[in-house]
């Protein structure tokens, strides 16, 4: 027996098959074996989860003792282990035989055939037919109720990997092992089926199942894929690495990649299952030209010639200021780089922007101004190193599910959580402190938190003195911002604000993460400045587990901005006025970059209404649906002389175009995306472009060529070589100079700044308080009301956002099997039970939602996920036209609109039965 009071040595020496090896004390026997590049069979073991010890196939011999299970037994100093022997093979064969004895031997008919871990184990140990002939007694009915997960308990081997994946990776705790002994089975919830058990359909259970007890429908019929391509997900900004499995040129299914640095084998329902849009029948497959108000099909040559000719004509007639381009954060870095090069080098205008304008432009602006780089400071993996997390205006468990799951795991492991959000999100319900502030009052609460930090001297004086400037000004600004003052504005308890500031300051490593509830909620830049102030004042920057990071909404919204699809900057956020940057671009492009003041997206619509803007080229962004004040946007587009829209599906923006060019999805192209934590990752072609479509980079390149400029990236076959684009981009982008396709292939990813080919990339920016801008700038942020306030006529606050099962305006997700899920069927107005009672509204009733700009009618969903006084809608359902309601008040620095703050009035217009 061990002496518990003896101090354990740091390392121990053991023998594995006669080889001596020194390993850390506490290492499992399995890890010691793996360290020697040896293996033992396992079934219940998964390297992402805690050992479970159930299958017993990993038993190894220990000299002088009885065999132990390698997966969970720590090595014993001086012990000698044997991983293989006739005894062990027989033992493993007999254990495998017990597992197989009640498993249907219908391998040919099974979706796991060829990839079944039980099948290969049986082969490995030489098991043929089990000796225990007897009628099979486990034959429960299959559960086919879920569109993505098929449960066939007769095949279950009781390894509980699904249960543990649900607990330890996803954190949803939906599955459990029910019953005991021979009757043990996996159930969802209280055996009510997946959907009723609050399953989030992430598919981790299917991914972990070593057999086919849990399987993805359709994979059995398809057989083994003939190609597996690793690529990066095109939904949110987490940047999950995906293995796309294809057969006969079509996607069979998508699985998470365990090597993915951002997701480590995890995905959400969208990335994993919502891919059918690529093969949708209504893909645009031929260019369209509008004649007499109607579209007609056209050849590529005809359409491209028309586009080039009209652009040239308008350019020559009205000058470069009459042209504007909207690039796409859904497209690759290379495509965005080409778009801004087309704008600047061919059309001679800085009027190029991307949709970060309407999401995180305030974050990028504030981080750039205050710290010197327009991106999050830390990495996703840092949430496990934080002891306090403060999440402001973000709902990551729905909008960034894989990152959200990681936050949940950190909180379950003991990290303190502060949530500032008007909604009772899942994380708000888990939080130690939830401040349910009124939409639009962020700056007041953040100022009050700074007030508490200063008033109670919870500061890192050394850090402030050594690494920052502007403290006195901030101190003066927040002097009057007491918690009591902020509480009046935000409708919360002042003690909550005090407690939150104290909790944040008490953390050894405190991290602030925020979402669009900051940037789209009025004065977003000031809110971001305020949070950066908090981090600087408490020294919570430049270390693991600290930092200030926005959780970015789209797959490549970071990259689109990084590569210069913005009106005021080249790539790397270098000002278009910066003489060094101008010189470098002049040399690379052979033309003088334009000097005009480029239009931002909202300015473009203004200019179109004023008649100054004549032509637009919109790449993959449905502005007529996703931008606020829809009526105004549509009017702007209609007033243009010439509108080109490049899209994969016909949508309200494309309907207004003069020429529609059919582009391609991420599955059909090569390139790179940058995720939310500055991670540059490869996008690889998994399927050929659907006939009739062309890769977006190629189209942009071709438009330029036909306008008389060769952008210089055409491969011999006329396609665009994305790696060549990256080479030029990297050359012109100081923080990307070390990036190349060769390095990305070798490393899997690079986090910028990566200034030279030897640089490993940067997981944490501003390490040691050495800020990229020199000293961190503390910024005074005086309180102002948002542009929109409730009054007697419009007494309710509407805030908008995403839900788990859909993505933005639903162009992709609503063309997939995701719509088979009950929760993904229609838009609802989420309203608190108390408010609903007051208005006589019940779940399912039709409610008229009226703002100062318009009205829509949706069904009500009475839920405590909404707080009193604030209602919530998504914008996933074009037919409900949420954005019609939203005003065009905007952030004073960046023009980011206030999607999250909209005064409305509500009226019930029909009962649930209507």
């Amino acid at each position, binding site marked *: 027996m061990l002496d518990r009071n003896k101090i354990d040595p740091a390392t121990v020496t053991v023998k594995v098959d006669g080889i001596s090896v020194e390993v850390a004390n506490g290492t499992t026997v399995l890890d010691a074996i793996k360290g020697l590049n040896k293996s033992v069979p396992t079934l219940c073991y998964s390297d992402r989860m805690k050992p479970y*010890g159930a299958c*017993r196939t990993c038993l190894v011999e220990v000299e002088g003792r009885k065999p132990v299970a390698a997966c969970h037994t720590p090595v014993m100093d001086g012990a000698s282990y044997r991983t293989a022997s006739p005894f062990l093979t027989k033992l493993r064969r007999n254990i495998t035989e*017990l597992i197989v004895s009640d498993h249907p031997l219908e391998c040919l008919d099974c979706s796991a055939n060829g990839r079944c871990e039980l099948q290969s184990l049986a082969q490995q140990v030489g098991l043929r037919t089990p000796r225990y002939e007897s009628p099979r007694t486990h034959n429960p009915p299959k559960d086919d109720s879920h569109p993505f997960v098929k449960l066939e308990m007769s095949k279950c081997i009781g390894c509980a990997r699904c249960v543990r994946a649900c607990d330890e990776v996803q954190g949803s705790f939906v599955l459990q092992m029910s019953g005991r*002994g*021979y009757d*043990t089975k996996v159930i969802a919830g209280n055996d009510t089926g997946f959907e009723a058990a609050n399953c989030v359909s992430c598919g981790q259970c299917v991914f972990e199942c070593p057999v086919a007890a849990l399987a993805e429908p359709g994979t059995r019929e398809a057989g083994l894929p003939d190609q597996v391509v690793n690529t990066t997900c095109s939904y949110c900004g987490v940047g999950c690495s995906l293995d796309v499995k294809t057969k006969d040129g079509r996607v069979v299914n998508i699985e998470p990649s365990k090597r993915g640095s951002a997701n480590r084998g995890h995905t959400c329902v969208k990335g994993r299952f919502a891919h059918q849009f690529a093969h949708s029948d209504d893909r645009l497959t031929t260019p369209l030209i509008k004649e007499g108000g109607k579209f007609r099909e056209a050849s590529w040559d005809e359409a491209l010639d028309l586009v080039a000719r009209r652009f040239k004509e308008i350019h020559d007639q009205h000058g470069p200021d009459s042209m504007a381009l909207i690039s796409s954060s859904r497209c690759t870095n290379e495509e965005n780089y080409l778009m801004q090069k087309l704008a600047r080098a061919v059309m001679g205008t800085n009027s190029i922007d991307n949709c970060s304008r309407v999401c995180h432009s305030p974050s990028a602006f504030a981080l750039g101004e205050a710290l010197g780089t327009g991106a999050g400071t830390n990495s996703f993996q840092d949430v496990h190193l934080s002891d306090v997390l403060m999440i402001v205006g973000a709902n990551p468990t729905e909008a960034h599910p894989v990152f959200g799951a990681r936050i949940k795991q950190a909180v379950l492991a003991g990290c303190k959580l502060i949530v500032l959000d008007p909604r009772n999100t899942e994380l708000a319900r888990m939080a130690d402190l939830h401040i349910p502030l009124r939409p639009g009052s962020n700056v007041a609460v953040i100022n009050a938190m700074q007030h508490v930090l200063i008033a109670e001297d919870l500061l890192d004086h050394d850090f402030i003195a050594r690494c920052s400037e502007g403290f006195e000004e901030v101190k003066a600004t927040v002097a009057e911002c007491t918690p009591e003052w902020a509480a009046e504005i935000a409708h919360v308890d002042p003690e909550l604000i005090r407690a939150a500031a104290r909790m944040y300051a008490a953390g050894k490593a405190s991290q602030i993460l925020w979402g669009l509830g900051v940037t789209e909620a009025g004065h977003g830049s000031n809110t971001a400045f305020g949070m950066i102030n908090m981090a600087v004042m408490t020294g919570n920057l430049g270390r693991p587990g600290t930092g200030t990071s926005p959780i970015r909404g789209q797959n490549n919204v970071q990259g689109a901005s990084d590569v210069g699809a913005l009106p005021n900057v080249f790539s790397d956020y270098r000002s278009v006025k910066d003489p060094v940057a101008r010189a470098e671009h002049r040399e690379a492009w052979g033309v003088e970059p334009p000097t005009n003041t480029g239009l931002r997206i909202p300015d473009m619509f203004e200019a179109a209404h004023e008649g100054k803007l004549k032509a637009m080229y919109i790449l993959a962004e449905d502005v007529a649906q996703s931008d606020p004040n829809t009526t105004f946007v549509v009017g702007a587009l209609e007033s243009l002389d010439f509108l080109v829209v490049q899209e994969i599906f016909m949508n309200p923006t494309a309907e207004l175009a003069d020429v529609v060019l059919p582009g391609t999805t991420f599955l059909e192209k090569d390139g790179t995306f940058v995720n939310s934590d500055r991670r540059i990752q490869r996008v690889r072609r998994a399927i050929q472009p659907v006939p009739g479509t062309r890769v977006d980079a190629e189209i942009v390149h071709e438009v330029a060529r036909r306008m008389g400029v060769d952008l210089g990236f055409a491969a011999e076959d006329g396609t665009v070589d994305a790696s060549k684009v990256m080479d030029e981009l990297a050359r012109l982008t100081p923080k990307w100079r070390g990036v190349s396709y060769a390095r990305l292939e070798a490393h899997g990813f690079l986090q910028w700044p990566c200034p030279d080919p030897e640089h490993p990339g940067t997981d944490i920016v501003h390490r040691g308080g050495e800020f990229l801008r020199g000293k961190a700038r503390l910024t005074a942020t005086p309180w102002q009301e948002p542009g929109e306030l409730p009054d007697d006529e419009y007494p309710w606050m509407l805030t908008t956002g995403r839900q788990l099962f859909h993505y933005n305006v639903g162009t992709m997700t609503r063309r997939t099997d995701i719509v088979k899920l009950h929760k993904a069927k229609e838009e609802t107005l989420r309203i608190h039970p108390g408010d609903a009672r007051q208005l006589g509204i019940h779940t399912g009733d039709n409610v008229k939602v009226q703002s100062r700009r318009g009205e829509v009618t949706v069904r009500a969903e009475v839920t405590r996920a909404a707080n009193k006084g604030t209602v919530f809608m998504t914008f996933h359902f074009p037919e409900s036209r949420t954005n019609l309601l939203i005003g065009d008040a905007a952030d004073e620095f960046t023009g980011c609109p206030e999607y999250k703050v909209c005064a409305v009035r509500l009226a019930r217009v029909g009962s649930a039965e209507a």
Partner: protein
Amino acid sequence: MAKTTSFETERVFTKTWSNPNGHSLAAFKEAGGYKALKKALEMDPAAITDEVIKSKLRGRGGAGFPAGRKWSFVPKTDKPKYICVNADESEPGTFKDRYIMERSAHMLIEGLAIACRAIGAHTAYIYIRGEFGLAERRMQQALDEAYADGILGKKLMGTDYPLDIYVHRGAGAYICGEETALLESIEGKKGQPRLKPPFPAVEGLFACPTIINNVETIAAVGPIIDKGADWWVNLSRTEAEGGTKLVGVSGHVAKPGVYELPNGLTLKQVIYDVAGGMRNPDKPLKAVIPGGSSCPILLPDELDVSFDFDAMKTVGSLMGTGCPTVIEEGTCIVRLLKRVERFYAHESCGQCTPCREGGDWLFKIISRIEEGKGTMEDIDKIESIASKIEGHTICPFGEALAWPARSYLKKFRHEFEEHVTLGRCPHGPIPVAPLALSGVVA
């Protein structure tokens, strides 16, 4: 009711059992109860543990691990520490702890309070088998009395030492008698054994240092502290362990029941001299399961051995819980094994393969043999399965499954073969009692 025997000893556990109200606080105090706790509270906690080590008190749930040494494994940390009393007495053939709870509940409380003091625990749980109605009521009643009397609570016996004791009821799973499954159950989870290490003494209940002891072990602590380790050692007639022992004899004996006996009598003495020998003179002794149904079976010529933890190992079996089951001639060993394996197959928690699948196959194959439908290969399969279960599972449940099968087969193989050759059970038709398991009707 304890029976008097020719091996009369000083009564320790059964002192108040002849009094119908012996379980009350008043009766316990009158018999000298809670003196030991008072004494212990004046002792250095380490001295309590030392005294228990000296007494050679061993774990009476079956493993026989020295109780005092177990306590000494608790690390010195700031974390809370816990004691859980394992009162999930569920092993077929074992019935002693329930009588302590029904008749000497305060004895358990006193011992538990002393043990808590020894390791520095301020919270203790008594995990009582779900089926034990009276034991639970008596235990709760005794706790209520102790709280009302100021013995337990914020001030243990008026000192500054707070102690709370809770009764936690099981819900009918044998596996929750396995110490880590018991902890899972108290934590509100499904009762399944944990992987070890970490051992409970380091990381147990709510991830804090925890000692789990059997009812009888804890109940013995009071008298040991009261009268001293030497007195306890002298009660025994063997070097292996000190004290007296509650022995529950069942099966085909003339006088089955619970007896308080000095440790160190032979099994033969227990059966013939204490329990009155066989009930039917025409049916001599055939076999004995010495300490609960999981223990390897013994033949009549293997009984002249001291009934203690060490000596029983020399005959290839175990003392277990100290409750022998006696079997007379004419009993079908195959049927007996089927009955035993049905129990274990039903009680397997289902976590690890050998026991989840193996238990069920053992039961199916043995049933087949009993019905006369088995083959000689089936007999070999029993050994093949059982030998792959033993020593290869997460918890000792695997042994409980394997030992009966392997020992019955080793000692009575001819009976199994007879079933196969005759094509029926030589002991007559199979009783119609429903032995349904997993949808298979035996």
